[in-house]
């Protein structure tokens, strides 16, 4: 733990001093906490930051890359994984992290999400799930729970939310994990493992948007929503002891899937070898 604490202060090394701080997010927004977790993970892994890329789409979460001193790219809404796919194929030596909001990843970007998973594309997808479209002011997203209100669900949401992690698993991801911004150090360890895993890895970082979702649903301020995360999440081990009904109401944290196997990049390298052999043969 000593070395860890020491590293914590390195966070400032990773922030872009040429960028205007404080960050643009609302006071108390969890996105900054996820950013901190990502930096800690990368720092702990000792990655060469020239070989780290952070790609995002559009949304509050999408604004994350601008603050960190990596190779950063803020793309179009929902398409971050597709941009990242091209980048990764061109630069297989780079660690390509893709940060997305729930809307970015699963609404407009849902197809790229399941296809990156299917291809087992060597990317680390970090989804900051605040159950709402934050940036545009609180419209419901594909992860808004049933019956909750949003600016476009004035009568309460009737669309069942996606089980993000289940979907990632069904689509073919290699590594799937979940934690919350309350569990910030757990989060950074999961992110570390996700980055280390070949193939497509997904970390769902459960956060909150008190400014829109919280206000519309009278869930209180950041502090209240943070407390809710603390009190309503359980580890995998705890969850296994629960009845299905009880488990339903909890956020289950931990590594939900971790499977070995070649990622797309390795498989394509094999094709290159094959093609070159055929060429010369």
């Amino acid at each position, binding site marked *: 733990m000593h070395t860890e604490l020491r590293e914590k202060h390195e966070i400032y090394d990773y922030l872009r001093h040429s960028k205007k701080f404080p960050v*643009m*997010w*609302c*006071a108390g927004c969890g996105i900054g906490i996820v950013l901190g977790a990502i930096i800690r993970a990368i720092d702990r892994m000792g990655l060469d930051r020239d070989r780290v890329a952070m790609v995002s789409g559009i949304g*509050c979460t999408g604004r994350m890359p601008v603050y960190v001193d990596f190779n950063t790219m803020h793309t179009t809404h929902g398409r971050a994984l597709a941009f990242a796919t091209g980048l990764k194929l061109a630069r297989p030596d780079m660690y390509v992290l893709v940060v997305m909001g729930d809307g970015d990843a699963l609404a407009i970007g849902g197809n790229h999400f399941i296809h990156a998973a299917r291809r087992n594309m060597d990317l680390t997808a970090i989804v900051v799930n605040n159950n709402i479209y*934050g*940036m545009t*002011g609180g419209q419901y997203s594909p992860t808004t729970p049933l019956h909750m209100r949003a600016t476009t669900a004035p009568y309460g949401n009737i669309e069942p939310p996606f089980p993000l992690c289940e979907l990632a698993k069904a689509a073919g991801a290699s590594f799937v994990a979940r934690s919350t911004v309350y569990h910030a150090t757990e989060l950074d360890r999961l992110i570390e493992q996700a980055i280390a895993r070949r193939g497509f890895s997904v970390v769902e970082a459960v956060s909150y948007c008190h*400014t*829109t979702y919280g206000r519309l649903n009278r869930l209180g301020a950041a502090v209240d929503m943070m407390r809710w995360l603390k009190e309503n999440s359980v580890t995998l081990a705890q969850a296994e002891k629960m009845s299905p009904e009880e488990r339903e109401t909890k956020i289950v944290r931990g590594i939900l899937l971790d499977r070995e196997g070649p990622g797309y990049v390795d498989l394509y390298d094999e094709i290159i070898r094959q093609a070159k052999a055929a060429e010369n043969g």
Partner: protein
Amino acid sequence: MVKGTTKAPGRYEIRLAGEGGQGLILAGVILAEAAAIYDGKNAAQTQSYGPEARGGASKSEVVISEGEIDYPKVIEADLLLAMSQEACDKYYHNLKRDGILIVDSVNVSRVPTSKAYRVPITRLAEEATGRRLVANVVSLGVIVGLTGIVSRQAIEAAVSARAPRGTKELNLRALEAGFRAAEELKAQVTG
């Protein structure tokens, strides 16, 4: 007090500037509504805001006129309310030569002219209602009190109509606090 508007007869331009979350857009809407709906004049309200969901610069503009309003933005402000230092620095140059500058002295320390009205708007809000949130309504009291650009009934009606359920009294108290501050300032100037 509306005499500063002679250069553009019939058209009075107000700019409310500060930060996101200070309720300036709503203040602009209420002021414009007072003019348009309750005083029967013409009014146009526009705004600009950053991409930031909260925080960042925020600006609300109100043009009030007896005649038709074509260009709806401020050309040269007759009145500038600056609720932050940044807003004051940024927009002061666009204030008409004899335009009115009102600053929230709680947030703005460097004031570019001695002719400014320095009002501790946020503090007044807190004092009058216990809630800093209604500083925007206090500022409306100050503005209307100083300029008479809309009638008192109009602004009271507009504030009442826009007040969230159960907050009408509180908001009217905030408005009243603004009016009182304006009276004091006027007394100072004339006195």
